[in-house]
């Protein structure tokens, strides 16, 4: 796009955020075409990088007044295509509001066990900032070295340790939000109780469709006195999943309870994340116990005993902090390692009741085999949150078709078992067609009523989270800068 004929809206956006803060160069826009899920793509009209709440508000107001759809974006690590700019109709384009430059930690308040951050702060940066004082930010998605807290709020992100500590929603105390009209409001009491409806609770997990979080007050969690991390390996995957169910049934509450299968183990061991997992095992469990040191070993022994009773070949405890870190690096690097095995990777995120794990897992492998696919699993077993992964080559149409068929069957299997289509990655664009599998139309309509309250025009992140007949109420059809 030639500079001389800078479109009016672009000029106005640049006036708000600065010349270097807006890009509409088609090559640069390519980066924003998808997020970490590559199956869905949509190139934005422009990307804008605000630095302040006030800028976000003015940008949104401008787009709202011009009836141009837009959507917030964090680090783009999302796995449901929530951060791609979709317009109000198929093929329409939209503006991406990229929050990465709003990345300051604004306040750390130990007395109230809370911190105030801008949405672009990388998850792990906050934990690092408070580590020396014995605190951390509990939600720890495996992507925590790159994802933003704003993105975590939007997805209600989980992670290995949310088994004990809860998901993002349990750790958000307050939000400053720019509503889709540009109005700035505060939700929640930032640590003090408020009155009325829990709008804060509704905003968390709304996938960028209720507005843009511009300031986030989070709970800080005391770092446990002691951590014991066990690695148990099994020669039968069924034994591993029965061990998981048994640990939960015993009423134990490990900090994390993760499962990694053979295919994943070998992908990890072949990668830079090599953690020393036994390559010949059918599956490994990482069982982490944390808390007060008094009595923790008794707990760990109990967990180890349960694993042995379910035929674990070996159970060993990480003997040093370094070894513990390595075990986790392998787990958290698993998607990355799997990603190198084939051109494309589809990560699923279904949840089942924990007693159903052994049965469901066995059937998932059967589905993979039936469709001749390279299927692996690495997941938050303690929560029943499965991540079946399908490695494939997007250029092979036949394989793509089999991937979709298998995906659907797996989804149906989990839903029939009493589960959900997504435990932490969100619905986004990717799973929107699956929503009617778990909610009838009336229930979807109730959700859309709440969306109407926050986002009546529908311009903010259209086409995500909950399927709607009409994505936007009023918008500029096929808007294009070149002609405006």
């Amino acid at each position, binding site marked *: 796009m030639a500079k001389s004929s800078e479109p009016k809206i672009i000029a106005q956006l640049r006036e708000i955020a600065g010349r270097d803060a807006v890009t509409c160069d088609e090559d640069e826009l390519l980066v924003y075409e998808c997020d970490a899920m590559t199956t869905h793509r949509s190139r934005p009209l422009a990307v804008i990088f605000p630095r302040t709440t006030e800028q976000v508000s003015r940008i949104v107001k401008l787009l709202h007044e011009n009836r141009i759809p837009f959507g917030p974006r964090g680090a783009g690590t999302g796995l449901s295509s929530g951060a791609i700019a979709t317009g109000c109709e198929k093929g329409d384009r939209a503006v991406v509001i990229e929050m990465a430059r709003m990345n300051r930690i604004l306040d750390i308040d130990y007395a109230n066990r809370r911190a105030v951050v801008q949405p672009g702060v990388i998850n792990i940066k906050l934990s690092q900032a408070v580590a020396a004082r014995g605190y951390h930010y509990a939600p720890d998605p495996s992507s925590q070295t790159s994802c933003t807290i704003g993105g975590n709020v939007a997805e209600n992100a989980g992670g290995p340790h949310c088994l004990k500590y809860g998901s993002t929603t349990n750790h958000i105390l307050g939000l400053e939000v720019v509503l889709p009209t540009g109005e700035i409001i505060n939700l929640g*009491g930032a640590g*003090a109780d408020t*009155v009325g*409806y*829990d709008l804060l609770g509704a905003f968390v997990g709304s996938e960028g469709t209720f507005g843009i979080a511009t300031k986030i007050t989070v709970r800080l969690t005391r770092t446990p006195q002691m951590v014991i991390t066990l690695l148990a390996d099994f020669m039968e995957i069924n034994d591993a999943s029965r061990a998981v169910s048994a640990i939960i049934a015993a009423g134990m509450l490990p900090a994390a309870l993760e499962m990694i299968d053979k295919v994943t183990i070998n992908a990890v061991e072949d990668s830079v994340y090599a953690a020393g997992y036994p390559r010949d095992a059918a599956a490994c469990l990482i069982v982490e116990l944390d808390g007060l040191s008094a009595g923790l070993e008794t707990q760990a022994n109990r967990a180890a005993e349960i694993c042995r009773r379910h035929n674990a070949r070996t159970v060993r405890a990480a003997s040093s902090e370094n070894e513990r870190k390595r075990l986790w690096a392998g787990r958290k690097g698993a998607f990355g390692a799997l990603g190198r095995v084939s051109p494309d990777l589809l990560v699923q995120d279904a*949840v089942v009741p924990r007693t159903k794990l052994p049965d469901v897992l066995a059937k998932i492998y059967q589905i993979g085999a039936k469709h001749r696919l390279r299927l692996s699993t690495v997941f938050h077993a303690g929560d029943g949150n499965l991540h079946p992964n399908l490695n494939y080559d997007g250029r092979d149409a036949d394989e793509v078709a089999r991937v979709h068929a298998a995906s659907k069957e797996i989804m149906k299997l989990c839903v029939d078992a009493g589960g959900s289509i997504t435990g932490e990655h969100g619905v986004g664009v990717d799973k929107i067609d699956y929503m009617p599998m778990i909610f009838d139309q009336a229930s979807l309509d109730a959700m859309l009523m709440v969306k109407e*309250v926050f986002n009546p025009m529908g311009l903010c992140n259209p086409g995500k989270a909950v399927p709607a007949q009409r994505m936007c109420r009023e918008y500029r059809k096929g808007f294009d800068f070149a002609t405006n």
Partner: protein
Amino acid sequence: MENPQSETAPARGSSLDKIIHRLREMFGEDRAVIASGSDFRIDDERQRAVAFPHNIEELSETMKLADAERWRVIPAGAGTWLEMGNRPTRFDLIVSTAKMNRLLEYEPADLTATVEAGVPLLAFNRMAAEHRQFIPLDPFGDKRSTIGGVIATASSGPMRCAYGAPRDWLIGATVVHADGHVTKAGGKVVKNVAGYDLCKLYAGSFGTLAVIAEMSFKLRALPPCEKTIVFYSFNAESLCSLVARITDSDLQPAAMELIAPSDEAPLPIETDKFALAIRFLNEPEAVDSQAAEALKLGSEFRRAILSVADATGFWQAYHENETSPHTEFIFRLSALPADLNALIGDISRTLPRSNLRAHAANGVVRLHAGLAWLDDLKTKERPRRLAEMRRLVQSRGGQMVILRAPDEIKNQLDVWGDAGQTESLMRALKDKFDPQATLNPGRFVAGI
């Protein structure tokens, strides 16, 4: 802060007899009663019609009938706390879910359960205790209190310190809307981000969005061991600083209650000083080590370690005391946890001689007082003093809610206080869910 709507007694549209007749005709004799006295009492009405659907289908049909007849409905559980809220602008019928009290699903090995709204929380927890599990909520109130009522009011008690609020345990809900249609939110698994989290909206909505029919929860294992320690001091400040030290330590108390001296409250501890009661619930080793550490952190204070029997007696009395029918005023004030001492200072200057207790780790204070409490103030001065207290709390970012007060006060002060910037969003939400203002009209924040 004025509440003009509640200056008059609630207007009643249809006659009670007609309502009862219609309900009995449709659902059977035992599905509707006329209650009087303190039974399901809302306001100063003498009698009221109460419907008791026995299952979600009947609840839905009842709401459809109410919608067709344009009856205003007050949803209820056991009806133990219907006084809470502003005086209703109007109501015709109370719809109680108390007879919907089946346990629908409970798989102990999954640590999840699904119940109908009318199951009493205590009854559920007694049953789950056989599997050494519980819903870790201990709200104040009657033992009949239903789970639906606890969720609708977002009620929690001292254990909130460790276990959080109802919103943290509710994973799914089925509700019946004002026009009778049924929807679901959430699900039955412990981790779920499919769709918007409407459960959060229903929890604490005080029956103004929809009637809750069924709920799913995640459960916790019952801790095998517990210990309660009480620290004493003649001033609140020193105990608040102990709270701060504990908050900044590795200790994980299940409850931490600050109790002001009082000669009214009969508690089995010393009541002539400030007391800080700390309760640990955990594995035996962890309880012992924490108790030892707490005693070290609070070494300068006079203290008592309660025996198991004394601790049980104390917490029971503490709960019963909180909802004593003889208390005429109950307020709940909130602030940031670290501002607790300052808040107590505000209170002692503005509303002296009220009986004060606090969830010390959460910045929540409850004030109790008898009728004679404001007697030395002129009638006009009373609401002014309360409004001043509310202003002080709001300036700290918190809120003052009137849980109980004589009509004379409720007629002049809104029960909830200012909803601030979110008022218009809340109103819009109510309009979407209940466009005819059928449910609990006028009782909630912002005139909702």
